[in-house]
């Protein structure tokens, strides 16, 4: 009877195709929503894990979080280098990690930081070694894969944080050398190029040789001196942001307010900002989700109407099947199968379409690519969506199929014979 169900569907191919399309669109929308929601949430949680506070220039706290933790937005500005030492001196601070942004290579952000940034994210060196001297660079796993870079190769960063923003000015005078490649960690580090803060300063011609090494900072060979004694004029060594992890709960009470009191600095709490982002995101998602389910219900209604019309117009056909020896359950099952096949086709095409859209989106939109959107991950919720759509198909076919039990064979045959 499966072959017969397919034959009936082929017989009214246009209606079948439209019904499948309706369901496929709704399934694709629902899968995309589930995927975006799940991947965004887990990405936000994973990348911000362990970071209690971000200190940066005044501006939007959400922008500060997005640019410093997730590396998807523009920084709010720069902050004095001394802020790092101030935070590291605070007994409530367990770790303060400097970030200096400004350049990219092939669209991947070059981040000036220190070794603690790598260990903080639980990542480790897969090949080569950690950056030690200025212009040493280590590549995230995704960067190395995408650029095909190997150890010992040199590359030149471009000004700006994204390829489109690059002003075309390569820092030819200061090439980086790849000294290490990170193992894949599933964090933002996969998509970053890490180097020392001093490298970023050197690239931009910022003198830092006379600066005081912050407490606990790496052992780059700097001469100590007064901050004001910069030798190259107005360019002061600065940072873009500092990622802070508290030693104890008292830090959460005292440090943000202390930072926000300073005129140049703002403190943004990742937990608060990501929750706000998810809430903002969630409101839009909810609307889209309702629309997608309405679309699925419309698809179910279309199947119902198509099968009901079919069952009525083909009453003679169904009667002939019964005369040929098909039992009532067999004919009932054939119509039910038509609904199920339509729904299953819609679900399959929807799933394929959603994942293809994810793949294309991750390749086409840099921001999504930078977020590490995975097009080929399958979530249990997708199975639930498929199950629900199959159920819609079966329910839509139930009443038309039940008409089989009401067909009076002799009367139908007398009417049509």
């Amino acid at each position, binding site marked *: 009877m499966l072959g017969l169900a397919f034959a009936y569907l082929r017989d009214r191919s246009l209606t079948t195709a439209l019904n499948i399309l309706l369901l496929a669109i709704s399934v694709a929308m629902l899968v995309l929503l589930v995927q975006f929601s799940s991947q965004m949430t887990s990405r936000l949680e994973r990348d911000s894990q362990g970071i209690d506070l971000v200190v940066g220039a005044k501006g939007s706290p959400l922008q500060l979080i997005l640019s410093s933790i997730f590396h998807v937005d523009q920084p709010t500005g720069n902050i004095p280098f001394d802020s790092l030492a101030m935070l590291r001196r605070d007994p409530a601070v367990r770790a303060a990690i400097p970030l200096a942004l400004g350049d990219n290579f092939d669209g991947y952000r070059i981040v000036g930081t220190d070794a603690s940034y790598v260990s903080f994210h639980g990542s480790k060196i897969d090949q080569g070694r950690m950056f030690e001297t200025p212009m040493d660079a280590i590549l995230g796993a995704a960067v190395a894969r995408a650029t095909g870079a190997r150890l010992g190769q040199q590359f030149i960063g471009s000004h700006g944080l994204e390829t489109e923003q690059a002003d075309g000015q390569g820092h030819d005078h200061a090439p980086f050398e790849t000294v290490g490649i990170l193992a894949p960690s599933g964090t933002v580090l996969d998509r970053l190029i890490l180097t020392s803060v001093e490298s970023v300063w050197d690239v931009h011609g910022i003198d830092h040789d006379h600066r005081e090494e912050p407490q606990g900072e790496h052992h780059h060979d700097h001469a100590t001196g007064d901050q004001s004694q910069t030798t190259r004029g107005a360019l002061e060594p600065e940072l873009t942001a500092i990622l802070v992890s508290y030693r104890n709960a008292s830090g959460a009470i005292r440090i943000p307010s202390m930072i926000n009191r300073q005129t140049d600095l703002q403190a943004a709490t990742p937990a608060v900002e990501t929750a706000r982002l998810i809430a903002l995101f969630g409101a839009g998602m909810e609307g889209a989700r309702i629309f997608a389910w309405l679309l699925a219900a419309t698809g179910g209604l279309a199947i119902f109407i198509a099968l009901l019309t079919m069952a009525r117009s083909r009453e003679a056909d169904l009667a002939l099947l019964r005369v040929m020896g098909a039992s009532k359950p067999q004919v009932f099952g054939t119509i039910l199968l038509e609904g199920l096949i339509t729904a299953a086709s819609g679900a399959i095409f929807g799933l394929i379409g959603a994942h293809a859209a994810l793949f294309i989106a991750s390749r086409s939109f840099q921001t999504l690519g930078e977020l590490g959107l995975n097009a080929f991950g399958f979530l249990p919720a997708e199975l639930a969506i498929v199950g629900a759509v199959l159920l819609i198909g079966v329910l839509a076919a139930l009443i038309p199929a039940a008409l089989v039990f009401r067909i009076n064979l002799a009367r139908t045959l007398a009417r049509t*014979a």
Partner: protein
Amino acid sequence: MLLEIDNLHYSIDGKHIFSDFSLSVAERGHHLLVGPSGSGKTTLINLISGLLSPDKGMVSIAGRNIATVTEAERDRVRREYIGIIFQTLRLVSALDLSGNLLLAQRLSRGATDAPLIATLLDRMGIAHLANAKPYQMSQGEAQRAAIARALATRPRLLIADEPTSALDALNARQVAELLLQCASDFGVTLLVATHDDRLASVFPNRIVLAQQGGRAD
């Protein structure tokens, strides 16, 4: 006897169609069931094929009284013993000719017999229409296809209800002769209900239905 009807009573809305009607048809016999419109030819065919249940009496197919069994059992007897040809309702619309014959075999026997289908299509002169849909056939071709579909299940009793009334004289005669020839060749008992006088000369035996009851000539 392949078909035995005894003391059959059947009425519709209080109107008696059959009262104490009896009939015996031997295996491999070829009979023409004739009578005017309203004489109950189609009703009798429906009672024989188990599409209707009699009010009283016995309808036995190959020794199995289908008057007293469940609908599922009547379906089974029809599936295994009977092939039916209608005037216009001939094939399942969504399937091509081969598909119709294969489906009929699968429903009846649970298996297909492609060589038999090829033989039947060849015999009916419609082998070239194996992949044609019903709407692509002429009336005469469709009726031959319906005969092939009914014979494809190797029935012991082939029933045709007004098989020629929609055909012109030439096609009607050809279809009647084809029915008789195939019934002989395949060893099938044939019962043709018609009000078409043109078939009287073709069939050796006639069963005449009056308003009530009937008799075999």
